[in-house]
């Protein structure tokens, strides 16, 4: 029975989204209720599935022999699906106020809703092929969202995004083919599915293939040097940047990397090989690269985008440890970063929408005028810096403990990168906060007349996220326990 619920969770937002365009709504309010109901129902179904526990594989379409589109729920699909299902309804709520002044909102909400279904598809896919299918769909459904404003830079950004993603997927495809040929099956199994007897002498070839596939998925996870589409894609409306470019799309890339590394090639096949050094090296470099660029950047949303690049590579670093603890740390940061970064982006969006400004140096004094928004922003900033008691500390703790535990000397330097990056994070985030709250002695608040906190539709998600950042930081026990079990520690 639960097989059909999976299908329902994926299809409901897709068809619900298409219907948004077709139904002639009387006014905005009704459309808002309709969409929110679709979102909440979908999330309810997802949570019902999660609470029911893991399921058997469910094939819906057979292509040939064992190639099929099929679904299954295992612990890490629960984590990813559970995460996006909590964020999506809140993000839609936020969008209602944000999109008020934008045109073509129906199209926007259609694709926004469709993307939800596709992301769930990635989470529930039970083998590399099905995941690849939804992965490509994700690219296609999000391009219109980046394009939304139809300005020149939006056109350029969406084109860049499209080329990068399709190119990356092509490399990932190579990995897919090799896993199908050399694997016992192409279904995901923790520990990998490669058939050692088949590989024989060709181990090095497989390692090269892994590298290509890893970097291919790395495009969406914005690993250096393939991450430059991400800051550019910040021209999209903030709900897109916040949810898709800090959580759904980029984390889909990371999720795919986890599936590739731990569920297809298998960490025991990769651990200790040259390819581990290479991918870990890329992750470490990206961590530093992302936050150095963030320090340099003065556009608020682009700064946050670079911060995302750096934080995604924290997760990738955890993955490349190739140990169960590393995976647990990576999953932990996947969740914590999602909440912190979506919060930061939403605050940035509220600031941009209320003041019409978008650069850090224009933020002087807004902290006093928008106390809720910048209070929440500060929570996110402190969380990203890794102040104990907030979510970022827990995930950093887990990642770094895993690195120490792995007894890999390169990973020790990785810890150094994490901490150096935390310091740079402090520089670029606290600098922003100080601008907002301490504008300098002779600042004239008259220039900010009329700027206030937004309505509850925007504030509620912010408060929910900020409180979650604190709760995750203080009561992390059960979550970490669950993640460790999922990672097979």
């Amino acid at each position, binding site marked *: 029975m639960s097989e059909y619920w999976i299908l329902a969770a994926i299809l409901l937002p897709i068809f619900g989204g298409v219907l948004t365009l077709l139904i002639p709504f009387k006014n905005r309010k009704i459309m808002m209720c309709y969409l929110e109901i679709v979102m909440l129902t979908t999330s309810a179904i997802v949570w019902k599935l999660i609470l029911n526990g893991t399921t058997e594989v469910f094939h819906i379409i057979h292509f040939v022999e064992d190639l099929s589109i099929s679904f299954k729920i295992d612990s890490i699909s629960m984590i990813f699906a559970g995460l996006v299902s909590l964020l999506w309804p809140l993000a839609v709520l936020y969008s209602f106020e944000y999109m008020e002044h934008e045109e073509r909102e129906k199209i926007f909400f259609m694709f926004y809703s469709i993307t939800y279904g596709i992301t769930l598809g990635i989470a529930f896919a039970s083998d590399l092929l099905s995941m690849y299918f939804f992965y490509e769909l994700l690219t296609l459904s999000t391009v219109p969202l980046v394009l939304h404003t139809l300005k020149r830079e939006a056109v350029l950004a969406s084109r860049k995004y499209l080329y990068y993603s399709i190119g990356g997927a092509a490399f990932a495809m190579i990995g897919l083919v090799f896993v199908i040929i050399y694997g016992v099956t192409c279904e995901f199994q923790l520990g990998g599915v490669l058939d050692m007897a088949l590989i024989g002498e060709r181990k090095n070839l497989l390692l090269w293939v892994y590298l290509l596939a890893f970097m291919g998925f790395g495009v969406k996870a914005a690993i250096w040097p393939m991450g430059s589409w991400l800051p550019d894609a910040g021209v999209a409306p903030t709900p897109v940047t916040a949810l898709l470019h800090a959580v759904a799309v980029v984390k889909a890339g990371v999720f795919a990397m986890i599936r590739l590394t731990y569920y297809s090639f298998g960490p025991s096949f990769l651990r200790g090989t040259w390819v581990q050094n290479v991918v870990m090296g890329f992750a470490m470099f990206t961590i530093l690269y992302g936050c150095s660029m963030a320090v340099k950047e003065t556009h608020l949303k682009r700064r946050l985008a670079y911060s995302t690049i750096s934080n995604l590579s924290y997760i990738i670093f955890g993955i490349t440890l190739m140990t169960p603890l590393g995976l647990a740390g990576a999953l932990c940061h996947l969740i914590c970063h999602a909440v912190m970064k979506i919060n930061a982006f939403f605050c940035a969006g509220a600031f941009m929408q209320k003041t019409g400004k978008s650069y850090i140096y224009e933020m002087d004094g807004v902290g006093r005028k928008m106390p809720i928004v910048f209070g929440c922003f500060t929570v996110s900033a402190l969380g990203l810096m890794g*102040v104990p008691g907030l979510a970022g500390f827990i995930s950093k703790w887990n990642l*770094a403990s895993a690195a*120490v535990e792995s007894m890999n000397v390169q990973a020790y330097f990785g810890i*150094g990168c994490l*901490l150096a990056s935390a*310091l740079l994070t*402090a*520089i670029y985030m*606290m600098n922003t906060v*100080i601008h907002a709250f301490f504008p300098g002695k002779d600042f004239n608040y008259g220039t900010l007349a009329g700027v206030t906190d937004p309505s509850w539709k925007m504030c509620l998600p912010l408060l929910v996220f900020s409180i979650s950042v604190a709760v995750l930081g203080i009561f992390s026990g059960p979550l970490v326990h669950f993640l460790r079990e999922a990672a097979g520690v």
Partner: protein
Amino acid sequence: MVIGSMNDAIIMLAAICFPILFGAVILLMPEFSSRNRLLGAVGTGLLVTGILALLTLGSGEAGICLFSLGEKLEIFFRLDNLGRIFIVIVTIIWILAGFYSFEYMKHEKEEKRYFGFYLMTFGVLLALDLAGNIVTYYLFYEMMTLLSVPLVLHSKTREALMGGLKYLFYSLCGAYMVLMGLFFLNRYATTLTFTAGGTLNGELTAGNEKVLLVVVFFMILGFGVKAGMFPMHAWLPTAHPVAPAPASSVLSGLIVKAGVLGVIRTVYFLFGESFIRGTWVQTAWMTLSLITVFMGSMLAYREKIMKKRLAYSTVSQLSYILFGLALLQGEAMTGALLHVVFHAFIKSALFLSAGAIIYKTGRTNVDDMTGIGKEMPVTIWCYTFASLALIGIPPASGFISKWYLAEGALSSGTGIFTWLGPVVLLVSALLTAGYLLPITIKGFLPGADFDYGSLQKREPNLWMVIPLIVLALLSVVLGIFPNPLTEYIRTIVSTVL
């Protein structure tokens, strides 16, 4: 989980939570209708906290584990003798400087914010002194940094903002070095709870000593940032002087000591002194602290702005303490702990007198202070007594601690450092005299051609003078009757060495 009596544990928690919550409430409340109401509230907060803090001292071996942030990440408080000493100095100085602020902050704006953060930082410092494991210590260490930043950038001038940011980034840099150590300790130590003699797990450690030595060095360096140790000292002379004077006095007298306490906890209570004795870490640590002693004094000597000069002096004096700890020798450690106490009183007194001068005359440059002793005799006498104590002229307090430091160095068996240490300390003491005393000399003896007619009585009122007198007296009297304190410190030292 509670160790010892429940009542003691509750008092301990109250001493920590009350000022933090009270400060937060003051921050969140709308503006007070009158200044007196604000001061009344703050005064009550300070006194209640003071009483609670003193009550904790009376309790026996009490401890409480509040909850876990995660596996092994326990928030755990426990009182020990080392903590007691820190609690006493924090409480005395914090309350005195708080009352001093009542008058001093009149000429600054946004007092509510200042006092709110001032009270919260008080609670955080008490929590640091009571922290029973390194995780708790780290948590409150970060909180202390974040909460004291608003004190530094209070005046909101460009200079203050830059100073505040510099303070923040240097401190965080240090904190992250410490965090690096935590990750490794989490694996290689049997427990993260502070235990005299160290908690390293011998089995796991075997074969990984090289990595762990690097780690302990990072931790010393990291805590050393707060204590102004070379090469991460540069924030201190920028940040301390831009804060309002009472804030500079607690920053320079107490908050820097949190770095010292961190080093003590790390070296003597986690890694264990035997782990680093005779290794390159000890040598590097001694070298860095001696460089800092000398450099700080030199820089103070050529600095003309009074508060900056005092800040450089803090850099130098803190490294006396660090050097004493680095020797890993009983007498030296006694000297270091004595110097913690003495320097706290002395430096707060010095900063408060500098504040009194700024408040009354607006002068900041030492060259402008000719004749100041005639105008503010009580302030300058207090300044002079504190200066004599810092230089180490017997029987004032600084002499005692430096005596133990030198004696410890001579019998430490650390090669070249046995004689190099005392020599550097001596040279630095001369420089200390050179940079502190000119104010007294010029202040009281302005010279024959001085225009006495323009002098006026400018002594500040009792809110400012009494704290100053108390602190100056303490810095002298503790030197005359050092025995009870010395004996008490010896009991601490004997548990770890």
